[in-house]
């Protein structure tokens, strides 16, 4: 293993100072569940590692009036077992249950997952359809970025070398709204081939779809909002025909690449099927799940 410095930090300011000092010569490590493999296979050989896993002020799950704030160092297992999340955001609990394995979920953090930015990652689509935002902190100050615009390319995000992802703010779902995430992988709990997150809200009196957000993971270099599919449903009475229309539109607006997981045509097929299933399940679930 190449010679590397190791910098242990215990507070956010220590993180930002170290980032300022070492710039892009050092890499942040939190849970390490993605980075350690790259280190061992010497695909990445940074000058130093900034270990932020002991910064306890970034480990929290708090509920405010309109949002739930989650510290970036919260682990997948914390989310899976947290009563607040179970009550208000079952979509995240269901997603976590199918993510990697218990061992990886015990160590892996939400911030690490988002910064690793695997386009087939399971965390991003649910956060995108719920309109979540990220709080990034640097020595210069802090800024917020929407999760949707946080991803730039394969494994590349908008984070600057001197910034650390500190918090995830997820707006609470409206009472008339519902969100869920379903995914297709070969063995059930496995690398995601296609992941679809859907948020729908109902206009009570006209029984039509007030708002809808759809996001597909695994079909591009970043998670993709199926905007055309959304317009096919927004404002309309949700019927089998409308849902089928949305499925078709979604599979037309994405351009997946053929690879080991499946050919491009197959991924288009799957997108159509999963968009339909996600919309229907989310729509039927309105009013049933959240407290």
């Amino acid at each position, binding site marked *: *293993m190449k*010679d*590397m410095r190791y910098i242990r930090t215990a507070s956010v300011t220590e993180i930002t100072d170290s980032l300022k000092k070492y710039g892009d010569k050092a890499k942040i490590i939190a849970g390490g569940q993605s980075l350690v493999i790259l280190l*061992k296979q010497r695909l990445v050989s940074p000058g130093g*590692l900034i270990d932020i896993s002991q910064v306890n002020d970034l480990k929290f799950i708090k509920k405010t009036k309109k949002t739930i704030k989650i510290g970036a160092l919260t682990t997948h297992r914390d989310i899976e077992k947290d009563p607040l999340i179970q009550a208000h955001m079952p979509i995240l609990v269901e997603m976590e249950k199918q993510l990697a*394995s218990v*061992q990886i979920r015990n160590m892996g953090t939400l911030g690490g997952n988002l910064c690793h930015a695997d386009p087939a990652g399971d965390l991003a689509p649910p956060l995108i359809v719920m309109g979540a935002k990220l709080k990034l902190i640097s020595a210069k100050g802090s800024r917020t970025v929407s999760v949707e615009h946080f991803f730039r390319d394969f494994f590349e995000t908008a984070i600057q070398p001197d910034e650390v992802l500190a918090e995830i703010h997820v707006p609470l779902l409206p009472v008339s709204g519902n969100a869920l995430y379903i995914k297709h992988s070969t063995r059930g709990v496995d690398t995601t081939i296609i992941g679809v997150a859907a948020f729908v809200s109902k206009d009570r009196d006209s029984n039509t779809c007030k708002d809808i957000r759809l996001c597909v993971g695994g079909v591009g270099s970043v998670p993709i909002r199926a905007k055309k599919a959304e317009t096919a449903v927004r404002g309309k009475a949700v019927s089998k025909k409308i849902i089928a229309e949305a499925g078709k539109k979604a599979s037309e607006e994405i351009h997946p690449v053929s690879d080991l997981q499946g050919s491009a045509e197959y991924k288009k097929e799957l997108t159509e099927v999963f968009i339909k299933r996600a919309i229907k399940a989310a729509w039927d679930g309105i009013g049933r799940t959240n407290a």
Partner: protein
Amino acid sequence: MKKYKLRLNINDIDYTLKVGAGETLLDIIRDQLNLTGTKKGCDSGACGSCTILMDGMAVKSCLVLALQAEGRKILTIEGLAQDGVLHPLQNAFVEKWAIQCGYCTPGMILTSKALLDENPKPSEDDIRMYLTGNICRCTGYQKIIDAVASVGQLQGERHGKK
């Protein structure tokens, strides 16, 4: 190679070691402390044979930097049996032939212990979901599930009696 001090407790023994920044917990457990009961199967977080308990949580030690275990309490398979008396899970694995080649067994038993600590009477599906990170190529899993479930019943009754 630049070395750093690492203090941790493994199987109720405190150690102070010199560790490189890039070394994983698996490498120091096996190579520095010679506890070869924890196995290296894929070295990329897929097979689970390197699973140990860190502060009671099942983690894949090939994906944990050694220095991130500072001040933590680690349990490896060698620490499970207390002075010659096997843990109920170890006995169940032996009695029910939940072991064939035995290479995945340490990781399988420790992950099952973490499960039973969390959920003393797990259903068969709970056990299967919890053990998804541990690949076994010999047994076809059934006898492992039976062994864990049987210890679950046992603990269940003991909980019931208390």
